[in-house]
């Protein structure tokens, strides 16, 4: 499989290595699909489903992950005539996955189909705990992960679908502006402006929350 270098490292059985050599290249599979062999798409789906699911699971609520995964591969199939055989299928699929997730959030915000997350005392405690701790170690424990995730969901709900995607890619995943721009199909300047504005908005949101909490005491 293209790009799966770790599988080649270390001990590896000859059969596995031979299997990898025998496996058709992505460009070869794409050519077969374009010639009418629709079932060959199953090979691509099997090869890249884990990669697509990892990307989708981070961005989409668990109940909708399967539907979005399905949508990503259907869109990929429909866009295959535009795929450049010299480029990496992995990267191309990532672009489709990110844009499908963005469309999902646009629709969700428009129709308000998702339940709004509400914060409780334990979320406020989590926030204060993170701020007062010397490091983030206390927040990394499994017991605190749930609070952190719910807190994150609450914070992201206050952003637009586009800003949400930028915050996730740049601040949470650590992508560069250029990488995020490439995946989203926007200019680098647009991504940077959105990232800056969203960060300021989140900071204001957290400041407001801290103020409300401090006034309770």
């Amino acid at each position, binding site marked *: 499989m293209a790009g799966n270098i770790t599988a080649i490292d270390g001990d590896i059985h000859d059969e596995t290595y031979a299997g990898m050599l025998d496996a058709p290249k992505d460009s070869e599979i794409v050519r077969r699909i374009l010639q*009418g062999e629709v079932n060959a798409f199953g090979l691509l789906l099997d090869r890249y489903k884990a990669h697509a699911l990892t990307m989708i699971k981070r961005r989409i609520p668990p109940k909708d992950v399967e539907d979005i995964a399905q949508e990503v591969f*259907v869109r990929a199939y429909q866009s295959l005539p535009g795929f450049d055989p010299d480029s990496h299928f992995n990267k191309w699929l990532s672009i489709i996955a990110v844009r499908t997730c963005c469309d999902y959030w646009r629709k969700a915000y428009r129709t308000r189909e998702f339940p709004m997350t509400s914060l409780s005392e334990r979320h406020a405690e989590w926030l204060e705990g993170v*701020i007062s701790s010397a490091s983030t170690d206390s927040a990394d424990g499994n017991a605190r992960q749930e609070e952190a995730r719910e807190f994150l969901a609450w914070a992201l709900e206050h952003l637009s679908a586009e800003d949400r995607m930028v915050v996730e890619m740049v601040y949470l995943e650590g992508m560069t502006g250029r990488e995020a721009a490439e995946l989203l199909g926007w200019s680098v300047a647009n991504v940077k402006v959105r990232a800056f504005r969203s960060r300021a908005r989140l900071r204001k949101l957290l400041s407001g929350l801290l103020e409300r909490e401090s006034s309770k005491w």
Partner: protein
Amino acid sequence: MVKLKREDFKKVQRALSSAYKAEKNSEIGNAWEERAMARIQGLRPLASRRGLTAPFEGYVWRLAPAAAAVLLALGAILYQQMDFLSECEMARVFVENRLDDSLFQVLGAS
């Protein structure tokens, strides 16, 4: 308003990033793969969708700026060649002559 310090905000950001990257425990079955393939098999094969225009599809957006420039140039030439003056003259005649007079002339009344 209480302003969150930069270093505090960075701590929160790191904690949220760590939670975001952590593997979620949601189990995903294989049913979606079968549904995806069923949907794809229900679509028309890609080969039959590529008609006579297919070889040119890649050039559409590349040629769009040039096409727009040509359209603008043609529009400018057309604008220069149109005889706006005579159209204005015609309009002035109709405005200056009363409508009933014009109609009588047309109908041949005295």
